[in-house]
């Protein structure tokens, strides 16, 4: 690993676009060098997608951001996963959806294509990876699970109670989102993007809006920027408190869960009263936001902040006082920090393993570039750490929501769009799960030519497989809940 990674050398002297990304076309040799750079830890793989006859790779490093693209040769290009395993599922999905051929891809099984799409039906059985040994048995779970959750299949190979291997199979809720987005106008694009992963609708809509705004040079009124921040933090708070309850629920401490679900309901009711929708769908659009916050709404949010702080402190006190609960969470579901770094896993999965990455800090965007808050990390990388990171983040979010309310000045909440030009833009936004990436290419007519969406879960799902290994089957729900990865955001 050289002191200056291949990325820094490559983009030295080049100007970044308004979205912060340096864009350049590369040759296959450089493409492969960059893939090897990801594997060597010189920079992180942030996204990988197909755009027409090119493959594009978003990379990030210390203060560096670049999108490199490579022209494929009739669909063929050198596989990134051949050098850097985190690209594996991305490339399998690219093969399924776009028919590209990543040359050297180690795992050529389909990923999102289950052999069910009209015109492409296949009776071939999906081959799960093997685990051989005396006394091993398999447990197949899903796609329909016992609880009310999204569908996916988990194949456990266990030795007695201990999980030897977990393999995930996803793609059940694939809705052809990127296909629908191609050719849509910007307004319809925003509506679709807000429904790719309903739990992160605010973050998704914000990332899409920022990518479109960067492409078109569209300025957003300061009041709208703060309102976006407030909504995004309310979304984060609602999920973090809910996840804490969910983890405790999976360890059979129903009282904590009851309190947390009650607190979540409080957040959603306030969101509904202030912004007219419990999940705040369709509230962020390119150019600003669609609803203003009234003086009454500001008061409601302030009231909510103090109730949330009270709940947080109380839950934390009860959690700390229950050794039987911590017996389930401490040292359960450990992912090695090296793997977390390799996969550049964001969100609480990364921060619970000491990876101090938070888009709001590392690639800050308004209003976070002005807000004082800390990235909280833990190092034990277990269920307990992922729960406590959420608790820490709740405190930070409460602090900055209060500040954003203080800073709200009267003004417009939405601006008119500039004339459409053929352009590109990308954005990274911190959703509650971690960084979500959006890349948008706009045609001269103003319609969306290509939109790519990458959820934080792409780099977290594979780590769940690693986290579960060696744990007992009964602890899988705890591990899974502590990750809380998205199915719909991943399956697209």
């Amino acid at each position, binding site marked *: 690993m050289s002191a200056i990674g291949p990325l820094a050398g490559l983009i030295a002297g080049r100007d970044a676009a308004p979205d912060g990304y340096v864009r350049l076309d590369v040759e296959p040799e450089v493409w492969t060098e960059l893939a090897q750079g990801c594997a060597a830890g010189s920079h992180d793989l942030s996204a990988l997608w197909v755009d027409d006859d090119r493959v594009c790779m978003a990379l990030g490093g210390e203060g560096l951001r670049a999108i490199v693209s490579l022209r494929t040769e009739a669909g063929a290009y050198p596989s990134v996963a051949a050098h850097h395993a985190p690209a594996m599922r991305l490339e399998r999905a690219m093969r399924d959806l776009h028919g590209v051929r990543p040359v050297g891809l180690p795992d050529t099984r389909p990923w*999102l294509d*289950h052999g*069910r*799409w*009209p015109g492409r039906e296949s009776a071939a059985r999906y081959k799960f990876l093997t685990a051989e040994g005396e006394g091993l048995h398999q447990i197949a779970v899903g*796609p*329909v699970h*016992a*609880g*009310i*959750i*999204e*569908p996916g299949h988990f194949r456990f190979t266990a030795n007695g109670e201990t999980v030897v291997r977990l393999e995930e199979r996803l*793609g*059940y*809720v*694939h*809705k*052809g*989102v990127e*296909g*629908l987005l191609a050719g849509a106008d910007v307004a*319809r694009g925003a*509506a*679709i993007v807000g*429904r*790719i*992963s*309903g*739990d992160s*609708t605010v973050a998704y809509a914000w990332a899409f809006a920022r990518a479109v705004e960067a492409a078109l040079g569209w300025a957003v009124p300061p009041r709208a920027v703060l309102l976006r921040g407030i909504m995004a933090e309310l979304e984060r708070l609602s999920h973090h408190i809910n996840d804490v309850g969910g983890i405790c629920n999976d360890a059979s401490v129903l*009282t904590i869960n*009851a*309190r947390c*679900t*009650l607190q*979540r*309901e409080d957040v*959603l009711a306030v969101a*509904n009263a202030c912004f007219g929708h*419990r*999940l705040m*769908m369709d509230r962020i659009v390119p150019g600003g936001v669609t609803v203003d916050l009234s003086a009454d709404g500001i008061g409601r949010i302030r009231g909510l902040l103090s109730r949330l702080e009270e709940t947080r402190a*109380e839950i934390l*006190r*009860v959690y700390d*006082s*229950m050794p039987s609960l911590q017996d389930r969470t401490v040292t359960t579901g450990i992912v090695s920090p090296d793997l977390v770094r390799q996969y550049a896993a964001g969100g609480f999965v990364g921060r619970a393993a000491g990876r101090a990455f938070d888009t709001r800090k590392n690639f800050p965007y308004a209003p976070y570039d002005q807000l004082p808050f800390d990235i909280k990390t833990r190092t034990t990388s277990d269920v307990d750490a992922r729960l406590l990171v959420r608790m820490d983040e709740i405190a930070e979010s409460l602090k900055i929501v209060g500040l954003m309310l203080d800073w709200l000045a009267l003004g417009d909440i939405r601006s008119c769009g500039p004339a459409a030009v053929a352009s590109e833009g990308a954005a990274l936004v911190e959703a509650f799960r971690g960084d979500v990436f959006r890349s948008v290419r706009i045609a001269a007519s103003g319609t969306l030519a290509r939109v790519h969406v990458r959820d934080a879960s792409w780099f977290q799902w594979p780590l769940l497989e690693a986290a579960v290994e060696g744990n007992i089957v009964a602890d899988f729900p705890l591990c899974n809940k502590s990750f809380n990865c*998205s*199915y*719909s955001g991943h*399956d697209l």
Partner: protein
Amino acid sequence: MRTFLLGALFKGTATIAPPVPGADALEEVARALGERARQRLGRSLSIREVDAGSCNGCELEIHALNNPVYDIERFGLKFVASPRHADVLLVTGPVTWNMREALLRTYNAMPEPKWVVALGDCAANCGVFAGSPAVVGPLADILPVDLHVPGCPPAPIEIVKGLLALIEARAPGP
């Protein structure tokens, strides 16, 4: 823990008063069920939920039904893990090709009599996902739907009203 529990006890009730069943829902359910179904199971329903392609928005709101505010078990409505124990199949999402078989298998595993509820705009008409080649179509194209609960996603109170209509319409006459 003790103070936490005592505190919760003295805080007063979070649960809201029962809403009136939705009028539209009552009418739709009455039409769908008829007299026969009204006599069957009394005022209790076991529900099996299946996400057949949802964005997870509907699931979040269905989850909320179990929180202390809505507390739907007080109405005799209960979510069950096995389709073998279920009276109602509650389906969300535009049905994707990749989920179609799992959905049908779940439905087929349920004993008669059984009812199907399409929850959310996607289950009714595929919502923003209409026209995608990865989507089979609205739920009614695949299974006989007895009740629609519209919304994107429907607020928990609307879901409660819809499900109450299912109980009211099914309750044995005096």
